[in-house]
């Protein structure tokens, strides 16, 4: 087969991104929403790596390095919030978070 064109990789990356976006919009379980966000971040990482390879510039890989780190921190804090929310609401359903309504 012919070598993989760059746009194929980009298309794959955006597919993962939009799958993650769909998950954020549709799922009601807060933990699954957080997982979908991780999917989106990974798609972006792939784009960075691809272009770093394309342009022979390592700053793409450096960005990925930091994105991974920040994503880790964000997951930690986010899951802490989920635990706090669970204590009050006794559920992880996002539809029950109504305090800011109106």
């Amino acid at each position: 087969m012919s070598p993989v064109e760059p746009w194929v990789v980009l298309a794959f990356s955006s597919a993962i991104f939009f799958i993650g976006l769909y998950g954020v919009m549709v799922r009601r379980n807060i933990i699954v929403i957080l997982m979908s966000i991780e999917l989106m971040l990974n798609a972006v990482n792939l784009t960075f790596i691809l272009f770093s390879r394309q342009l022979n510039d390592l700053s793409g890989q450096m960005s990925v390095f930091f994105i991974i780190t920040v994503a880790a921190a964000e997951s930690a804090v986010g899951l802490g919030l989920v635990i706090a929310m669970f204590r009050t609401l006794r559920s992880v359903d996002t539809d029950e978070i109504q305090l800011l309504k109106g």
Partner: protein
Amino acid sequence: MIALNPYFFYFFAGLAIACALFVVLKKNPVASAFSLVVVFFSFAAIYAMLEAHLIAALQILVYAGAIMVLFIFVIMLLNQDGPSLDLNRSPLYARILGGAACLGIFASFLFAFKNATLITATGLFTPERIEAAGGNTQVISELMFSEYILPFELTSVLLLAAIVASVAVAKRKRMESEP
């Protein structure tokens, strides 16, 4: 030009897309979590194919090894490991609308990617020179502690803040004065 082996790439890409769909479509959160782990592994493989060896290793170590473990811990802690039917589905119209919107934008992105012209490579880090300098890890480490030292330090501060924040948010508050 990238020298990507098409067979390996399509295999891992297909696996990743399938497991990503499992993540968003499965009812059981544990199933979603494990699917996500497989997605991370596929991504690591693709990174390695794209000559980003350190990142591939870090992907497995941090994402699959630490973050997903944390996710599983929390799922178990909150007793969410059974399939939760009422937590699964949004109303039908939301799903249709959301799916349509995502597909639509994806289509436009596809169109844009296909018709874009790639810019010429301008950087200095050609694969030969990276090989000559001691490999991907070596070069990245050297870069990290010279050019990117400031973001590095700031990231460590960020991690410290995240530690403190998650402890403060998640800890069980002692019943003090009033209920």
